Protein backbone atom coordinates (compact mmCIF):
# COMPACT_ATOMS: atom_id res chain seq x y z
CA UNK A 1 0.00 0.00 0.00
CA UNK A 2 1.22 3.46 -0.80
CA UNK A 3 0.94 6.16 1.75
CA UNK A 4 -0.02 9.65 0.77
CA UNK A 5 0.86 11.90 3.70
CA UNK A 6 0.07 14.95 1.57
CA UNK A 7 -3.63 14.17 1.84
CA UNK A 8 -3.54 15.14 5.50
CA UNK A 9 -2.05 18.52 4.68
CA UNK A 10 -4.57 19.11 1.90
CA UNK A 11 -7.37 18.57 4.42
CA UNK A 12 -5.74 20.58 7.13
CA UNK A 13 -8.52 23.21 7.42
CA UNK A 14 -11.11 20.55 8.23
CA UNK A 15 -8.80 18.95 10.77
CA UNK A 16 -8.02 22.30 12.37
CA UNK A 17 -11.73 22.89 12.66
CA UNK A 18 -11.99 19.58 14.51
CA UNK A 19 -9.10 20.60 16.72
CA UNK A 20 -10.96 23.78 17.63
CA UNK A 21 -14.02 21.76 18.69
CA UNK A 22 -11.80 19.41 20.70
CA UNK A 23 -10.26 22.41 22.46
CA UNK A 24 -13.68 23.90 23.09
CA UNK A 25 -14.99 20.67 24.61
CA UNK A 26 -11.87 20.38 26.76
CA UNK A 27 -12.21 23.92 28.11
CA UNK A 28 -15.96 23.62 28.65
CA UNK A 29 -15.57 20.36 30.57
CA UNK A 30 -12.79 21.90 32.64
CA UNK A 31 -14.96 24.95 33.26
CA UNK A 32 -17.59 22.64 34.75
CA UNK A 33 -15.24 20.18 36.42
CA UNK A 34 -12.89 22.56 38.18
CA UNK A 35 -15.36 24.57 40.31
CA UNK A 36 -17.64 21.59 40.81
CA UNK A 37 -14.67 19.48 41.89
CA UNK A 38 -13.65 22.10 44.43
CA UNK A 39 -17.23 22.25 45.71
CA UNK A 40 -17.51 18.47 46.07
CA UNK A 41 -14.11 18.42 47.77
CA UNK A 42 -15.35 21.04 50.26
CA UNK A 43 -18.47 18.95 50.92
CA UNK A 44 -16.41 15.83 51.52
CA UNK A 45 -14.05 17.63 53.88
CA UNK A 46 -17.00 18.99 55.80
CA UNK A 47 -18.39 15.53 56.52
CA UNK A 48 -21.88 14.83 57.82
CA UNK A 49 -24.74 14.80 55.32
CA UNK A 50 -22.77 16.88 52.83
CA UNK A 51 -19.81 14.56 53.11
CA UNK A 52 -22.01 11.53 52.46
CA UNK A 53 -23.61 13.23 49.46
CA UNK A 54 -20.19 14.10 48.08
CA UNK A 55 -19.01 10.55 48.64
CA UNK A 56 -22.01 9.15 46.77
CA UNK A 57 -21.50 11.63 43.94
CA UNK A 58 -17.87 10.62 43.53
CA UNK A 59 -18.63 6.90 43.79
CA UNK A 60 -21.34 7.03 41.11
CA UNK A 61 -19.40 9.17 38.66
CA UNK A 62 -16.31 7.05 38.98
CA UNK A 63 -18.18 3.76 38.58
CA UNK A 64 -20.10 4.63 35.42
CA UNK A 65 -18.23 4.62 32.09
CA UNK A 66 -17.84 8.13 30.59
CA UNK A 67 -19.24 6.82 27.36
CA UNK A 68 -22.47 5.71 29.02
CA UNK A 69 -22.89 9.00 30.86
CA UNK A 70 -22.37 10.92 27.62
CA UNK A 71 -25.08 8.92 25.88
CA UNK A 72 -27.39 9.26 28.85
CA UNK A 73 -26.95 13.02 28.98
CA UNK A 74 -27.37 13.34 25.25
CA UNK A 75 -30.55 11.28 24.95
CA UNK A 76 -32.21 11.55 28.34
CA UNK A 77 -31.48 14.99 29.70
CA UNK A 78 -33.21 17.05 26.96
CA UNK A 79 -36.62 15.30 27.17
CA UNK A 80 -36.34 14.94 30.94
CA UNK A 81 -35.70 18.62 31.61
CA UNK A 82 -37.39 19.94 28.51
CA UNK A 83 -34.21 21.69 27.45
CA UNK A 84 -32.40 21.63 24.18
CA UNK A 85 -28.67 21.21 23.96
CA UNK A 86 -26.15 20.39 21.29
CA UNK A 87 -23.97 17.34 21.54
CA UNK A 88 -21.04 19.60 22.30
CA UNK A 89 -22.78 21.21 25.28
CA UNK A 90 -24.28 18.03 26.75
CA UNK A 91 -21.22 15.92 26.06
CA UNK A 92 -18.87 18.46 27.61
CA UNK A 93 -21.18 18.66 30.61
CA UNK A 94 -20.96 14.87 31.03
CA UNK A 95 -17.17 14.96 30.78
CA UNK A 96 -17.14 17.88 33.20
CA UNK A 97 -19.13 15.91 35.79
CA UNK A 98 -16.78 12.93 35.53
CA UNK A 99 -13.76 15.23 35.77
CA UNK A 100 -15.21 16.96 38.83
CA UNK A 101 -15.43 13.62 40.66
CA UNK A 102 -11.78 12.86 39.99
CA UNK A 103 -10.65 16.39 40.79
CA UNK A 104 -12.60 16.37 44.07
CA UNK A 105 -10.64 13.33 45.21
CA UNK A 106 -7.33 14.80 44.06
CA UNK A 107 -7.99 18.06 45.90
CA UNK A 108 -9.10 16.18 49.00
CA UNK A 109 -5.99 14.02 49.07
CA UNK A 110 -3.91 17.18 48.72
CA UNK A 111 -5.63 19.02 51.56
CA UNK A 112 -5.52 15.99 53.83
CA UNK A 113 -1.80 15.61 53.23
CA UNK A 114 -1.20 18.92 54.99
CA UNK A 115 -0.09 17.98 58.48
CA UNK A 116 -2.21 18.76 61.50
CA UNK A 117 0.69 20.74 62.96
CA UNK A 118 0.53 23.12 60.02
CA UNK A 119 -3.09 24.00 60.79
CA UNK A 120 -2.46 24.28 64.51
CA UNK A 121 0.66 26.34 64.01
CA UNK A 122 -1.10 28.73 61.66
CA UNK A 123 -4.04 29.06 64.01
CA UNK A 124 -1.84 29.67 67.03
CA UNK A 125 -0.18 32.47 65.10
CA UNK A 126 -3.62 34.05 64.93
CA UNK A 127 -3.88 33.85 61.15
CA UNK A 128 -7.44 34.27 59.88
CA UNK A 129 -8.99 31.21 58.22
CA UNK A 130 -8.78 32.67 54.73
CA UNK A 131 -5.08 33.32 55.08
CA UNK A 132 -4.49 29.85 56.51
CA UNK A 133 -6.09 28.40 53.39
CA UNK A 134 -4.41 30.61 50.81
CA UNK A 135 -0.97 30.91 52.38
CA UNK A 136 -0.49 27.72 54.36
CA UNK A 137 -2.76 24.87 53.27
CA UNK A 138 -3.25 25.32 49.54
CA UNK A 139 0.42 25.87 48.64
CA UNK A 140 1.35 22.63 50.40
CA UNK A 141 -1.67 20.75 49.10
CA UNK A 142 -0.98 21.90 45.53
CA UNK A 143 2.49 20.43 45.61
CA UNK A 144 1.05 16.97 46.07
CA UNK A 145 -1.97 17.50 43.86
CA UNK A 146 -0.24 18.85 40.76
CA UNK A 147 0.88 15.52 39.23
CA UNK A 148 -2.51 13.77 39.54
CA UNK A 149 -4.20 17.01 38.47
CA UNK A 150 -2.17 17.07 35.26
CA UNK A 151 -2.99 13.41 34.72
CA UNK A 152 -6.68 14.20 35.10
CA UNK A 153 -6.30 16.86 32.41
CA UNK A 154 -4.67 14.40 30.00
CA UNK A 155 -7.43 11.88 30.69
CA UNK A 156 -9.98 14.59 29.96
CA UNK A 157 -8.30 15.41 26.65
CA UNK A 158 -8.42 11.74 25.69
CA UNK A 159 -12.02 11.64 26.84
CA UNK A 160 -13.07 14.40 24.44
CA UNK A 161 -12.76 11.88 21.59
CA UNK A 162 -15.82 10.11 23.02
CA UNK A 163 -17.95 13.07 21.97
CA UNK A 164 -17.41 11.94 18.38
CA UNK A 165 -19.88 9.14 19.10
CA UNK A 166 -22.73 11.60 19.64
CA UNK A 167 -21.89 13.45 16.47
CA UNK A 168 -19.67 16.25 17.79
CA UNK A 169 -17.31 17.09 14.94
CA UNK A 170 -14.14 16.96 17.03
CA UNK A 171 -10.72 15.99 15.75
CA UNK A 172 -11.43 12.26 16.03
CA UNK A 173 -14.70 12.43 14.09
CA UNK A 174 -13.20 14.66 11.40
CA UNK A 175 -10.32 12.27 10.89
CA UNK A 176 -12.67 9.29 10.77
CA UNK A 177 -15.02 10.95 8.27
CA UNK A 178 -12.15 12.12 6.07
CA UNK A 179 -10.71 8.63 6.23
CA UNK A 180 -14.03 7.13 5.18
CA UNK A 181 -14.49 9.61 2.32
CA UNK A 182 -11.03 9.11 0.85
CA UNK A 183 -10.50 5.56 2.08
CA UNK A 184 -7.23 6.82 3.52
CA UNK A 185 -7.83 5.80 7.11
CA UNK A 186 -4.17 5.12 7.72
CA UNK A 187 -3.01 8.65 6.97
CA UNK A 188 -5.73 10.52 8.84
CA UNK A 189 -5.98 8.29 11.88
CA UNK A 190 -2.22 8.09 12.28
CA UNK A 191 -1.97 11.86 11.95
CA UNK A 192 -4.39 12.53 14.78
CA UNK A 193 -2.92 9.76 16.95
CA UNK A 194 0.46 11.47 16.58
CA UNK A 195 -1.14 14.82 17.38
CA UNK A 196 -2.76 13.54 20.59
CA UNK A 197 0.51 11.92 21.54
CA UNK A 198 2.66 15.02 21.09
CA UNK A 199 0.23 17.07 23.15
CA UNK A 200 -0.18 14.57 25.99
CA UNK A 201 3.26 12.95 26.14
CA UNK A 202 5.41 15.90 27.32
CA UNK A 203 2.80 17.04 29.84
CA UNK A 204 2.35 13.57 31.29
CA UNK A 205 6.11 12.98 31.42
CA UNK A 206 6.64 16.25 33.24
CA UNK A 207 3.96 15.30 35.77
CA UNK A 208 5.64 11.93 36.32
CA UNK A 209 8.96 13.61 36.91
CA UNK A 210 7.48 15.99 39.47
CA UNK A 211 5.79 13.00 41.09
CA UNK A 212 9.03 11.06 41.44
CA UNK A 213 10.85 14.04 42.84
CA UNK A 214 8.08 14.55 45.39
CA UNK A 215 8.18 10.88 46.35
CA UNK A 216 11.95 11.07 46.76
CA UNK A 217 11.67 14.24 48.84
CA UNK A 218 9.16 12.61 51.17
CA UNK A 219 11.26 9.55 51.90
Amino acid at each position, binding site marked *: *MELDPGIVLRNLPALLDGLRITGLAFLAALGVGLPLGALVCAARLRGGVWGALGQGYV*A*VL*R*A*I*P*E*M*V*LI*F*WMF*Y*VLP*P*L*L*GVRGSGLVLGSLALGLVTSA*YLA*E*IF*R*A*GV*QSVGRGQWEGARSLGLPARVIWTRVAIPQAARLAI*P*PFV*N*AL*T*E*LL*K*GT*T*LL*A*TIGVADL*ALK*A*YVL*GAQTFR*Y*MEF*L*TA*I*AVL*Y*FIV*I*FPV*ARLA*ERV*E*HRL*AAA*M*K
Partner: protein
Amino acid sequence: MDGLAPLDFGAVWQYRVPFAWGLWTTVWIAAVAFAIAVPAGLILAWGRIRGRWWVNLPIMGFVDVMRFTPLLVQAVWIHFALPALTGASMTATQSGLLALTLHVSAYVCDILRAGIVAIPKGQWEAARALGLRNRHTVVRVVLPQVWPLVLPPLANVAVGTFKLTAILGILAIDDMMKVANRINNMVFRPVEIYTAVAGAYLLVGLLLTAGANAVERRFGAARQAGRMRRAQAMGRPGALAGRPDGA
Protein backbone atom coordinates in the same frame (compact mmCIF):
# COMPACT_ATOMS: atom_id res chain seq x y z
CA MET B 1 -41.55 19.99 29.39
CA ASP B 2 -42.62 19.65 25.82
CA GLY B 3 -44.83 16.62 25.89
CA LEU B 4 -42.69 14.06 27.63
CA ALA B 5 -44.66 10.88 27.16
CA PRO B 6 -45.17 8.87 30.31
CA LEU B 7 -42.27 6.57 30.93
CA ASP B 8 -42.73 3.13 29.54
CA PHE B 9 -40.04 0.62 30.29
CA GLY B 10 -41.95 -1.99 28.28
CA ALA B 11 -39.49 -1.61 25.39
CA VAL B 12 -36.60 -2.37 27.69
CA TRP B 13 -38.35 -5.42 29.07
CA GLN B 14 -39.40 -6.55 25.62
CA TYR B 15 -35.77 -6.56 24.51
CA ARG B 16 -34.37 -8.03 27.73
CA VAL B 17 -32.78 -10.94 25.91
CA PRO B 18 -30.65 -8.81 23.54
CA PHE B 19 -29.75 -6.57 26.49
CA ALA B 20 -28.61 -9.59 28.48
CA TRP B 21 -26.51 -10.72 25.52
CA GLY B 22 -25.02 -7.24 25.29
CA LEU B 23 -24.14 -7.30 28.95
CA TRP B 24 -22.59 -10.73 28.52
CA THR B 25 -20.51 -9.47 25.56
CA THR B 26 -19.35 -6.48 27.60
CA VAL B 27 -18.35 -8.68 30.51
CA TRP B 28 -16.52 -11.34 28.51
CA ILE B 29 -14.61 -8.80 26.43
CA ALA B 30 -13.48 -7.03 29.60
CA ALA B 31 -12.59 -10.34 31.28
CA VAL B 32 -10.65 -11.72 28.32
CA ALA B 33 -8.81 -8.44 27.68
CA PHE B 34 -7.77 -8.22 31.33
CA ALA B 35 -6.84 -11.92 31.52
CA ILE B 36 -4.51 -11.54 28.53
CA ALA B 37 -3.21 -8.13 29.58
CA VAL B 38 -1.82 -9.30 32.93
CA PRO B 39 0.64 -11.90 31.59
CA ALA B 40 1.36 -9.68 28.58
CA GLY B 41 2.06 -6.77 30.91
CA LEU B 42 4.33 -8.98 33.00
CA ILE B 43 6.37 -9.92 29.94
CA LEU B 44 6.57 -6.26 28.90
CA ALA B 45 7.60 -5.22 32.40
CA TRP B 46 10.28 -7.88 32.40
CA GLY B 47 11.56 -6.64 29.08
CA ARG B 48 11.73 -3.13 30.42
CA ILE B 49 13.67 -4.13 33.52
CA ARG B 50 15.92 -6.84 32.20
CA GLY B 51 16.04 -6.21 28.47
CA ARG B 52 18.82 -4.47 26.65
CA TRP B 53 18.10 -1.15 25.01
CA TRP B 54 16.75 -2.73 21.85
CA VAL B 55 14.14 -4.52 23.96
CA ASN B 56 13.64 -1.79 26.51
CA LEU B 57 13.15 1.16 24.16
CA PRO B 58 10.51 -0.34 21.85
CA ILE B 59 8.50 -1.49 24.88
CA MET B 60 8.76 1.95 26.42
CA GLY B 61 7.56 3.49 23.15
CA PHE B 62 4.68 1.03 22.92
CA VAL B 63 3.57 1.69 26.49
CA ASP B 64 3.71 5.45 26.00
CA VAL B 65 1.79 5.37 22.74
CA MET B 66 -0.90 3.20 24.33
CA ARG B 67 -1.20 5.39 27.39
CA PHE B 68 -0.97 8.80 25.76
CA THR B 69 -3.38 8.34 22.87
CA PRO B 70 -7.15 7.81 23.25
CA LEU B 71 -8.48 4.25 23.14
CA LEU B 72 -11.14 5.36 20.68
CA VAL B 73 -8.46 6.42 18.20
CA GLN B 74 -6.54 3.20 18.79
CA ALA B 75 -9.63 1.04 18.23
CA VAL B 76 -10.59 2.87 15.04
CA TRP B 77 -6.99 2.77 13.85
CA ILE B 78 -6.71 -0.97 14.41
CA HIS B 79 -10.03 -1.69 12.76
CA PHE B 80 -9.82 0.62 9.75
CA ALA B 81 -6.19 1.58 9.16
CA LEU B 82 -4.31 -1.56 10.13
CA PRO B 83 -5.91 -3.86 7.50
CA ALA B 84 -4.44 -1.61 4.79
CA LEU B 85 -1.04 -2.43 6.23
CA THR B 86 -1.45 -6.12 6.95
CA GLY B 87 -3.92 -7.00 4.21
CA ALA B 88 -5.91 -9.11 6.66
CA SER B 89 -9.19 -7.65 7.83
CA MET B 90 -10.46 -8.48 11.28
CA THR B 91 -13.96 -8.68 12.65
CA ALA B 92 -15.05 -5.82 14.87
CA THR B 93 -14.85 -8.05 17.93
CA GLN B 94 -11.29 -9.08 17.10
CA SER B 95 -10.22 -5.47 16.52
CA GLY B 96 -11.92 -4.23 19.66
CA LEU B 97 -10.50 -6.99 21.80
CA LEU B 98 -7.03 -6.41 20.39
CA ALA B 99 -7.20 -2.65 21.00
CA LEU B 100 -8.48 -3.05 24.54
CA THR B 101 -5.94 -5.74 25.40
CA LEU B 102 -3.00 -3.70 24.08
CA HIS B 103 -4.26 -0.58 25.85
CA VAL B 104 -4.70 -2.31 29.20
CA SER B 105 -1.44 -4.29 28.97
CA ALA B 106 0.45 -1.00 28.75
CA TYR B 107 -1.03 0.11 32.07
CA VAL B 108 -0.39 -3.32 33.60
CA CYS B 109 3.22 -3.16 32.42
CA ASP B 110 3.71 0.14 34.24
CA ILE B 111 2.20 -1.19 37.45
CA LEU B 112 4.16 -4.45 37.46
CA ARG B 113 7.39 -2.67 36.62
CA ALA B 114 6.97 -0.37 39.60
CA GLY B 115 6.12 -3.38 41.75
CA ILE B 116 9.18 -5.36 40.68
CA VAL B 117 11.50 -2.37 41.04
CA ALA B 118 10.17 -1.84 44.57
CA ILE B 119 11.54 -5.20 45.75
CA PRO B 120 14.80 -4.40 47.53
CA LYS B 121 18.01 -5.52 45.86
CA GLY B 122 18.89 -7.50 48.97
CA GLN B 123 16.18 -10.01 48.09
CA TRP B 124 17.81 -10.75 44.75
CA GLU B 125 21.27 -10.90 46.26
CA ALA B 126 20.23 -13.13 49.14
CA ALA B 127 18.52 -15.54 46.73
CA ARG B 128 21.64 -15.67 44.62
CA ALA B 129 23.81 -16.14 47.67
CA LEU B 130 21.66 -19.13 48.62
CA GLY B 131 22.42 -20.58 45.23
CA LEU B 132 18.91 -20.29 43.81
CA ARG B 133 18.60 -20.40 40.07
CA ASN B 134 17.43 -17.29 38.30
CA ARG B 135 14.09 -18.81 37.53
CA HIS B 136 13.53 -19.80 41.13
CA THR B 137 14.58 -16.40 42.37
CA VAL B 138 11.92 -14.83 40.20
CA VAL B 139 9.11 -17.32 40.73
CA ARG B 140 9.66 -18.16 44.38
CA VAL B 141 11.23 -15.04 45.85
CA VAL B 142 10.44 -11.91 43.88
CA LEU B 143 6.99 -12.42 42.35
CA PRO B 144 5.33 -13.57 45.60
CA GLN B 145 6.39 -10.25 47.09
CA VAL B 146 5.29 -8.28 44.03
CA TRP B 147 1.68 -9.51 43.93
CA PRO B 148 0.49 -7.94 47.21
CA LEU B 149 2.01 -4.64 46.13
CA VAL B 150 0.40 -4.59 42.71
CA LEU B 151 -2.98 -6.15 43.45
CA PRO B 152 -4.71 -2.90 44.50
CA PRO B 153 -3.68 -0.96 41.37
CA LEU B 154 -4.40 -4.02 39.22
CA ALA B 155 -7.89 -4.23 40.70
CA ASN B 156 -8.41 -0.61 39.67
CA VAL B 157 -7.25 -1.46 36.17
CA ALA B 158 -9.81 -4.28 36.09
CA VAL B 159 -12.56 -1.76 36.88
CA GLY B 160 -11.13 0.54 34.22
CA THR B 161 -11.12 -2.26 31.65
CA PHE B 162 -14.83 -2.81 32.19
CA LYS B 163 -15.50 0.91 31.81
CA LEU B 164 -13.45 1.10 28.62
CA THR B 165 -15.43 -1.67 26.90
CA ALA B 166 -18.27 0.83 26.46
CA ILE B 167 -16.04 2.66 23.96
CA LEU B 168 -15.76 -0.43 21.77
CA GLY B 169 -19.44 -0.06 20.84
CA ILE B 170 -18.25 2.35 18.12
CA LEU B 171 -17.06 -0.67 16.19
CA ALA B 172 -19.80 -3.09 15.25
CA ILE B 173 -19.43 -5.08 18.47
CA ASP B 174 -22.77 -5.89 20.01
CA ASP B 175 -21.85 -4.93 23.54
CA MET B 176 -24.47 -3.44 25.83
CA MET B 177 -23.88 0.10 24.52
CA LYS B 178 -24.27 -0.94 20.89
CA VAL B 179 -27.34 -3.04 21.66
CA ALA B 180 -28.92 -0.01 23.32
CA ASN B 181 -28.22 2.11 20.24
CA ARG B 182 -29.68 -0.51 17.93
CA ILE B 183 -32.83 -0.99 19.98
CA ASN B 184 -33.29 2.74 20.36
CA ASN B 185 -33.11 3.09 16.59
CA MET B 186 -35.98 0.66 16.31
CA VAL B 187 -38.34 1.72 19.06
CA PHE B 188 -37.09 5.24 19.83
CA ARG B 189 -37.49 5.18 23.58
CA PRO B 190 -34.19 6.86 24.47
CA VAL B 191 -35.14 7.93 27.99
CA GLU B 192 -36.06 4.45 29.16
CA ILE B 193 -33.41 2.58 27.19
CA TYR B 194 -30.43 4.73 28.12
CA THR B 195 -31.55 5.04 31.72
CA ALA B 196 -31.82 1.27 32.01
CA VAL B 197 -28.45 0.77 30.35
CA ALA B 198 -26.78 3.42 32.49
CA GLY B 199 -28.26 1.73 35.56
CA ALA B 200 -26.88 -1.64 34.48
CA TYR B 201 -23.41 -0.20 33.84
CA LEU B 202 -23.53 1.67 37.12
CA LEU B 203 -24.49 -1.47 39.02
CA VAL B 204 -21.66 -3.54 37.54
CA GLY B 205 -19.25 -0.62 37.98
CA LEU B 206 -20.16 -0.20 41.65
CA LEU B 207 -19.83 -3.93 42.28
CA LEU B 208 -16.39 -4.00 40.68
CA THR B 209 -15.34 -0.86 42.58
CA ALA B 210 -16.45 -2.49 45.83
CA GLY B 211 -14.31 -5.49 44.92
CA ALA B 212 -11.33 -3.25 44.17
CA ASN B 213 -11.81 -1.47 47.48
CA ALA B 214 -11.85 -4.81 49.29
CA VAL B 215 -8.55 -5.70 47.60
CA GLU B 216 -7.19 -2.31 48.60
CA ARG B 217 -8.20 -2.86 52.25
CA ARG B 218 -6.70 -6.33 52.25
CA PHE B 219 -3.42 -5.48 50.54
CA GLY B 220 -3.15 -1.74 51.04
CA ALA B 221 -1.08 -2.31 54.18
CA ALA B 222 1.88 -3.42 52.11
CA ARG B 223 1.90 -0.05 50.41
CA GLN B 224 1.52 1.89 53.60
CA ALA B 225 4.62 0.11 54.85
CA GLY B 226 6.36 2.28 52.31
CA ARG B 227 7.62 -0.53 50.15
CA MET B 228 6.21 0.87 47.02
CA ARG B 229 6.40 4.59 46.89
CA ARG B 230 6.24 4.53 43.16
CA ALA B 231 3.06 2.53 43.25
CA GLN B 232 1.35 5.53 44.74
CA ALA B 233 2.00 7.26 41.47
CA MET B 234 -0.09 4.64 39.80
CA GLY B 235 -3.43 5.60 41.16
CA ARG B 236 -3.78 7.63 38.02
CA PRO B 237 -7.06 9.36 37.41
CA GLY B 238 -9.22 8.53 34.50
CA ALA B 239 -10.50 5.46 32.90
CA LEU B 240 -7.95 3.10 34.31
CA ALA B 241 -7.76 4.14 37.92
CA GLY B 242 -10.43 4.21 40.51
CA ARG B 243 -8.39 6.21 42.97
CA PRO B 244 -6.64 9.16 41.36
CA ASP B 245 -5.32 10.48 44.61
CA GLY B 246 -3.16 7.41 45.11
CA ALA B 247 -4.31 7.46 48.70
